[in-house]
């Protein structure tokens, strides 16, 4: 997917990265670990769920070397992420923050477009 970067709206940003949205193509861009990755809406939601389900505690307790990193290969993107616990924490924060902002945006939209309740007196 190619979107004009100037037209992207920032959803949420931390010092480690950001989520941006493209209103032309209806997609989200994840800016993380030095790269930009585009997600269709449903793939973005799925990616967030996958990241949410990673058990960081498990990674820390498990002493095998393979458990130091988690490999994420989201479908329909040309990207794979090999992340340690610190990076995963940062990614979780970005995705959760973005999700919160998106939900807030939906709520605000609903408030602004809903007509006030008709009073019967």
């Amino acid at each position, binding site marked *: 997917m190619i979107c004009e970067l100037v037209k992207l*709206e920032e*959803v949420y940003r931390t010092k480690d990265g950001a989520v941006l*949205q493209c*209103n032309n193509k*209806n*997609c*989200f861009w994840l800016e993380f670990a030095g790269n930009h990755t585009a997600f269709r*809406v*449903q793939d973005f*939601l*799925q990616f967030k*769920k996958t990241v949410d389900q990673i058990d960081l505690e498990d990674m820390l307790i498990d002493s095998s070397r393979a458990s130091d990193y988690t490999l994420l290969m989201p479908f329909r993107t040309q990207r794979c992420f090999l992340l340690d616990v610190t990076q995963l924490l940062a990614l979780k924060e970005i995705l959760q923050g973005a*999700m919160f902002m*998106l*939900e807030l*945006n*939906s709520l605000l*939209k609903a408030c602004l477009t809903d007509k006030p309740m008709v009073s019967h007196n």
Partner: protein
Amino acid sequence: MKDLIGLKTSIGEKIESALNAQIKVEAHSSSIYLAMASWCDYQGYDFSSDFFLEQADEERAHMMKIFHYVKNRGGKAVSPEVVNVPQDFESFRSVFEQALEQEMHVTKQFNNLADLCFKEKDFVTFQFLQWFLEEQVEEEYTMRRAIELFDVIGEEGTGAWDIDKHIPKITFDRG
């Protein structure tokens, strides 16, 4: 900002994952009843075996009802992974007692779901759950009635045979 998620789905993240969890519970119920049907057949309780086969089909239908609802509202319905299905049971009576416990667990899950709908102000899903909440009254009633047969008839002599014969006759009157 354009509401991209709202354009894709009408179902909140929490409600979607709770409904998917319920899909899994229904699938689990279905598998448990199938195991009970097999056990009853193996022990020679033909009517109870048929009864549990029917229950297994019903649970599968419940699962599909939720499955379709999730996807119809723009969510991602998850095909459930089913583990921990008991294959052996202590006694004829204990099969029904476990079935009742399973139904009570399901009722509790639906209650929690309804509670979540209120918290999330998702009254569309709340409305969808009404059918299941009513259904649970019947499911629990049927299992309780079955267990009562063990006390009323007694398992001695040809008692178990009699109980088995009475299982399909249990009916629920919605009043």
